């Protein structure tokens, strides 16, 4: 987050904020280009045909040459996504400048509380980076994208290369999804400026303080909710989730190869055990139910009353009674008459209350 401008110098704050976002946009683009070049350089050796590949097959020891053909790193899509994001960031910077100038004076007249909140909330980066709680906009996919890094495991280059390829894919999707979110912010900002102008013109004065925030949040909420249902948002978010999942799987492959080398149990092996245990328990349950169905007991007794300390009867798997600490009740019984639920008219049933058609078939 950028530093908030001092209330007594809004112009300087505006300039500082604008310069910050311009720099952020440029830096984002540069970072993409640098990353793409770095990956291309680092893996050029892996993806170029290995020197041994040109040898006659007969000269190669069996299994000596790994299969490097996992596809080349096409960094163009990533660069395009970075370019699009950079352009959006510059647009956002310009809009932010307008927004900030337009509302700063009004915000100054409100409370410091409202002013600080508003300043933070209209920052475009907050919509992308998770600041101010906006990680929600990145959604579940962003959470899933945060996996461990395995930069030092260079002994398994082929698997590691897959990890980086998956990382590139995931990062590209993150940029594409971020661009959709940023567009929503741009639209919200434009609509807000329009509404602000209309209200100011109608009332002769601009709304201030918290009412100004109410207007902004109402506009932004609406735009965000509409965006979240849009095809581009859903498509890019699904792509981000998919690529982050692939990244996790690629990472697991590296880890499991490493664990295998040292005879450590792997996730896959543990899953196998858990699958077997669950299946066995399920079989047991089905057998128990089958047995119970043949011996359904009829029970009738009086339920325990408040003065009686409840003591559980023998259960299938009995556990010691552990009393929770008694606290005085501070709630009085609800004394209002219960509302009458709506009795919904239903279409006539052929069987009415009769036994439902039997279709029970015990599964194996």
């Amino acid at each position, binding site marked *: 987050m950028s530093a908030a401008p001092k209330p007594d110098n809004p112009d300087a704050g505006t300039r500082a904020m604008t310069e910050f976002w311009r720099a952020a946009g440029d830096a984002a683009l540069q970072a993409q280009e640098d990353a793409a070049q770095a990956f291309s350089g680092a893996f050029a050796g892996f993806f170029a045909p290995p020197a041994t590949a040109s040898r006659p097959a007969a000269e190669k020891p069996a299994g000596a040459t790994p299969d490097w053909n996992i596809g080349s790193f096409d960094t163009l899509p990533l660069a395009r996504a970075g370019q699009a994001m950079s352009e959006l960031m510059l647009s956002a910077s310009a809009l932010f400048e307008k927004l900030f100038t337009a509302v700063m004076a009004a915000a100054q007249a409100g*409370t410091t509380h409202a002013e600080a909140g508003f300043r*933070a909330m209209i920052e475009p980066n907050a919509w992308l980076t998770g600041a*101010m*709680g*906006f990680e*929600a*906009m990145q959604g*579940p996919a962003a*959470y899933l994208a945060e996996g461990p890094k395995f930069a030092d495991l260079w002994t398994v280059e082929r698997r590691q290369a897959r990890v980086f390829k998956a990382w590139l894919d995931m990062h590209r999707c993150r940029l594409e999804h971020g661009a959709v979110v940023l567009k929503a912010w741009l639209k919200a900002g434009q609509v807000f400026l329009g509404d602000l102008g209309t209200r*100011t013109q109608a009332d*002769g*004065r601009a709304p*201030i303080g918290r*009412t100004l925030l109410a*207007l902004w*949040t109402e506009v*932004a*909420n*609406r735009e965000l*909710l*509409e965006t*979240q249902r849009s095809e581009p948002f859903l498509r890019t978010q699904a792509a981000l*989730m*998919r690529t982050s*999942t692939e990244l*996790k799987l690629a990472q697991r492959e590296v880890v499991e190869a490493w664990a295998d080398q040292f005879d450590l149990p792997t*996730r896959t092996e543990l899953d196998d055990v858990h699958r077997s245990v*669950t299946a066995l328990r399920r079989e047991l*349950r089905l057998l128990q139910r089958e047995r119970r169905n043949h011996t359904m007991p009829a*029970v*009738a*007794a009086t*339920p325990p*009353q*408040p003065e009686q300390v*409840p003591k559980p009867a023998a259960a*299938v798997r009995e*556990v010691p*009674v*552990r009393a929770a*600490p*008694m606290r005085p*009740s*501070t709630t009085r*019984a*609800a004394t*209002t008459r219960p509302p009458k*639920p*709506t009795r*919904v008219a*239903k279409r006539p049933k052929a*069987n*009415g*209350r009769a*036994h*439902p058609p039997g*279709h*029970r078939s015990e*599964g*194996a």
Partner: protein
Amino acid sequence: MNAAAPRNSFSKAPALSTALLSGADAVATSARMGSRMLAGSSRLGRIRDEDVDIATTPKDLVWSQDKVTLHRYRPLVPARARIPLLVTYGLIGRWTMTDLQDDRSLVRNLLNLGVELYVVDWGNPSRADRYLTMDDYICGYLDQCVEAVARLSGVAKINLFGLCEGGVFTTCYAALEPERVNAMALAITPIDFHADIARNRLGFGLINVWTRSLPREDVDRLIDAHGNVPGKFFGAMFNQLTPMRTALKYNFDMLDVIDDEHRLLNWLRMEKWIADRPDHPGEAARQWMIELYQQNKLVRNELELDGRRVDLKRIIMPVLNVFGNEDHIIPAETSQALGREVGTDDYEELALPGGHVGIFVGGRSQRLFAPALADFVLRNDSVQHSGASHS
């Protein structure tokens, strides 16, 4: 789409004011806010996590299997109902929502009205539980809980009360084992997972839209990779449903209550409940997302558990279906679909003001919910329903 989207706290603000504050007023307002924030920060610094107590109504552990536990609440008044009520929440979130704070507790209110209560807790599923299915939870654990409650209370059949995903579990159980259920109450329970399409309200049913948009292979791959669906994943999804509210929560909502210890503690209790979001066992999540959200098998009577088809027409006991008018997570229409499908005419609906959580903690709902549910239990306490026999 209409504009009836979930609002943020600012929607409660007065109509837009255009009055300009004078310089002196602005300074005074700022000073007051600064003073509140200072006092609030000090108060927040003194509060410890153990001070933020939730689910304090006394209860006893009466049964457990694996990570699943069953508790019986200690009666607060002499029982008025002979047949107990088993509360079943889902695997997304936890039942503690029903007993969040002493003065807004559905559990306490029901106990005070003479209802005998049990609650099932699914525990904290770990990676070892990734292969547990809805079949295991419904036909296994829930079935065992029902059996335990019936035995402990000395009755042949019991009342069920399912909430959210737990409502789906309850519905499935009642359809599979109608002879063991005296009456069934549901709250905020989706039955027709596609019913949101017809109304298409902005901000409502986003989870339905989002889940339907996912290719099936993406869901499969997600669960294959992660084993369980992390609780934080669902948390992020819920945050996304109310984007501005999420953004403002710690900036404004908290500041609004920070100078009042009682309100601050209540606000923190809600935070504590939200933070307690267990991971969802992977295979059960796969069924939840694909077979229910995507394929809508429940309302089509196509869902199968343990090889048995869940036919909603086998639900022949009295049914009370409670939902929130402003529930954007489980839109009311997805719950109301149940009324068209059950095999009983003894079906009632109760629409409460509030959203998914609001109907449990909201002031108006507090006055309506427990009395209606207790009344439902009491009205059906002496009737012996024949139920279906095993074939």
